[in-house]
């Protein structure tokens, strides 16, 4: 099964994203904690793109595809523009975040901890971030 959602680059659209994902994930056998992990991870990647890659320009958009095949959940987040490769991102230390009062950096840590696999692909124009999670993996 697969479903997709088009989101404009406005953080106000994150509520729509959560609703879309919640509806999709409810059709899987994931429990509440796992659904929350996926929802949060996808939102972190998407919010990052909206704010940092698209400067909240609401005339630009991001496409999110959710797909479940056998026991593998795959979420693809497509955008166009300056690519952000989540795999290249160097995680800050928590202590460092506190002393510098930096408010960013935690989101990508969450994605890495909650998802089973992350891929990033770009052709210089179109970027795709893929997040994978095994359903019933525990």
């Amino acid at each position, binding site marked *: 099964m697969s479903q997709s959602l088009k989101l404009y680059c406005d*953080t*106000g659209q*994150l*509520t729509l994203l*959560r609703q879309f994902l919640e509806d999709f994930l409810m059709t899987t056998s994931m429990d*509440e*904690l796992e659904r*929350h*992990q996926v*929802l*949060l991870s996808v*939102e*972190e990647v998407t*919010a990052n793109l*909206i*704010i940092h890659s698209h400067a909240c320009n609401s005339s630009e958009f991001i496409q999110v595809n959710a797909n479940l095949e056998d026991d593998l959940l795959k979420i693809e987040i497509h955008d166009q523009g300056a690519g952000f490769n989540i795999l290249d991102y160097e995680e800050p230390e*928590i202590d460092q*975040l*506190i*002393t510098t*009062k*930096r*408010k*960013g*950096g*935690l*989101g990508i*840590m*969450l994605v890495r*901890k*909650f998802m089973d696999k992350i891929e990033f692909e770009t052709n210089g124009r179109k970027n795709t971030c893929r997040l994978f999670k095994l359903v019933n993996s525990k």
Partner: protein
Amino acid sequence: MLKIDIQIEQQMHLLILKGEIDASNSVDLDSAIQSIFAQDCSVILVDGRELDYISSAGLGVFMSYLDDFQEKGIQIFIFGLAPKVLQVFEILGLDKLISIRPNKEDAMALVG
């Protein structure tokens, strides 16, 4: 949708968070904490019983004040988090930096 209420009980500021905190409204959490700072405050109790969701944007707000809390001798406790929300604090180790308790009574027992 996020609703924030601040109640003052004796020397404590109760910060009640209801709904969802994401990148679109984490600035409201920031303003609420700043307004508590502007008052005479020694203890902040965060009521998370009706907090359905917090993304890194909201977590980052709490983190950014930890040094200030320590400097000003302000104690902060969070209570009542749903398991799905609590797991987010735990996986980042934030439960080691901010005391999180199941309920208000347990949190108040820590106030020193």
